[in-house]
């Protein structure tokens, strides 16, 4: 299993995942690696593929916001104040009372919010996987400590802890908010990885590797981890959606990312401050959050089906 996965990784990098086999029976068959199967199953999931494309497009908008945005993030234009969405002057999302273009502001908001979300997902997955793997493999003091810490985290409402942390750690900075979120999120990843490792530890191939004299590190990294990659990747994807929603809530309440940094949640609360007559200021940044979270969840769903064919569902 594990060698399949690692050779697949090599195949993917060398660009030849499909190796034709000659069986001499006239039927041409292809030996496919695990990863090729995963890719094929994912590509069959049309909704997930479409979501991935939308997500990539949104991501590109974020990355190239300074080049793409028709106006600056904080550039007032009093002649164009309080415009409802219009094609004129590219004010597709309208303007606020200072005449700032909300399409441009949303683009910059995507840039920050998406960056924070991916940062959180990556960091908490990395920390959670490391600690979960150690706890599951050695299941001694590390395991005990991890479980007690999780108990502690589960006792307090997550959003309240985040709010408290960001108030007292001095917020406003996307990096700090990302670190705070990752610090709360990693325990869930660690619990999942620990569970996977606990069951993998009893498998024969681990015993065989031990008998062959492989070191602990080698067993963990080369033999056990590749077998957990599926669930870990799926969970990391879902963390992106969770992070973007929680960051938006924090920023909305005024405890998250603060100006001069743009953030989608903050844009919604600023829109709220301008009154309900300017409905577009609240509507569009929020719609973008929904779109991103929805796409990420669909991609995660597709990945889950792709990694776990036993749970495959028929889809429209």
């Amino acid at each position, binding site marked *: 299993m594990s060698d399949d996965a690692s050779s697949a990784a090599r195949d993917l990098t060398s660009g030849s995942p499909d190796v034709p086999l000659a069986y001499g029976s006239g039927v041409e068959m292809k030996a496919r690696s695990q990863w090729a199967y995963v890719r094929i199953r994912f590509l069959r999931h049309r909704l997930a593929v479409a979501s991935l494309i939308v997500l990539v497009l949104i991501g590109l908008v974020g990355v190239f916001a300074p080049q793409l945005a028709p106006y600056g993030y904080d550039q007032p234009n009093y002649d164009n104040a309080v415009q409802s969405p219009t094609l004129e002057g590219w004010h597709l999302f309208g303007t606020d009372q200072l005449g700032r273009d909300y399409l441009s502001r949303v683009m910059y908001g995507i840039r920050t919010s998406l960056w924070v979300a991916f940062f959180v997902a990556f960091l908490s997955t990395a920390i959670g996987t490391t600690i979960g793997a150690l706890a599951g493999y050695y299941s001694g003091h590390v395991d005990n400590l991890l479980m007690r810490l999780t108990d502690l985290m589960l006792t307090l409402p997550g959003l309240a802890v985040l709010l408290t942390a960001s108030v007292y750690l001095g917020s406003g900075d996307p990096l700090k908010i990302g670190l705070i979120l990752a610090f709360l999120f990693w325990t869930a990843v660690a619990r999942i990885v620990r569970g996977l490792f606990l069951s993998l530890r009893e498998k024969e191939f681990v015993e065989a590797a031990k008998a062959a004299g492989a070191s602990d590190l080698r067993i963990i990294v080369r033999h056990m981890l590749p077998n957990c990659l599926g669930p870990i990747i799926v969970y990391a994807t879902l963390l992106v959606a969770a992070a973007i929603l929680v960051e938006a809530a924090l920023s909305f309440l005024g405890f998250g990312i603060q100006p001069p940094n743009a953030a989608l949640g903050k844009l919604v609360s600023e829109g709220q401050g301008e009154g309900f007559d300017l409905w577009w200021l609240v509507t569009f940044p929020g719609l973008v959050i929904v779109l991103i979270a929805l796409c990420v969840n669909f991609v995660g769903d597709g990945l889950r089906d792709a990694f776990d064919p036993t749970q495959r569902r028929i889809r*429209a």
Partner: protein
Amino acid sequence: MLSYVVRRLLYSVVVLAAASFLVFTFVSVSGDPLAELNIIPNLSEQSRQNVIDRKHLDDPIPVRYGYWVRDAVTNQFGTTLLGDRPILPDLWRVMKNTLQLVLVAELLAILVAIGIGVSSARRQYSAFDYTATTVSFLGLATPVFWLALMLQVLVVQVYEHTGLKLFPIASLNSIDPGTGIHFAIDRAHHLVLPVLVLMVASVASYSRYIRASMLEVMGSDYMRTARAKGLPERQVTMRHGFRNALIPLVTLVALSFGSLLGGAIVVETVFSLDGMGLYFVNALRANDPYPVMAWLMVTATMIIVFNLIADIAYGYLDPRVRYE
């Protein structure tokens, strides 16, 4: 069973103590409780010193923590930092309002979710099932605060275009709510939108869960036995399937209590409801660690109690689970 409950409670006390010490240390080390004082102009040195003396801010953190524990246990969580206002009476008031909001929303959410989940499972892959799946994905991707704002925008727009006042968009009651039944109707009218917003996420996740649990039960042997006995299909799904599929929901609902309070924080802020969430946000904005500590301890206790009840109920509902 009794020894299990006692052991769990003792362990919970230890967890609470550890959590309170960690939070207290964190808040004391990273925040300056006098920051708010320094903003006030023309503050006399005397009143400044009064606050420091009252809250023992000159002492090291473990000593301050000791004073806090003493206040929490014997003196209703003590008082706020600046106003010297007793904390617990305020907390009781907002807690009642929040529990009212949350319990109503949760109860309705469970009922709606059961309806959707069971129907989805009975007609798997039908148009209804796909619609329910899509809508629940949407519900899980929608930020609570944005949904609340959009409903407010909608109500305001309807009012401006037709003059129709659908629902109040802020506070728990009108200025003059009346008494008795009038008060209740007024309160219910004010709670419609907040309850609706809180329900969405719960319905979305519970209905998915019930659907999965129902599908799992549908394939089990005793369902086939029930059908083989010749029971009508309705009785098979409701008596044999549904009741067993519901058991895991008990755990899910109890475990969701924490995230429900998170939702309450957001909803109460948007609708300016005098509940725990708004109280917490205001305490944070005022940079006052004492109500924040009290709030966290009270909610932590509630979460622990809910989890314990869920575990006991689970053991009672599912005889295969036994606690020792």
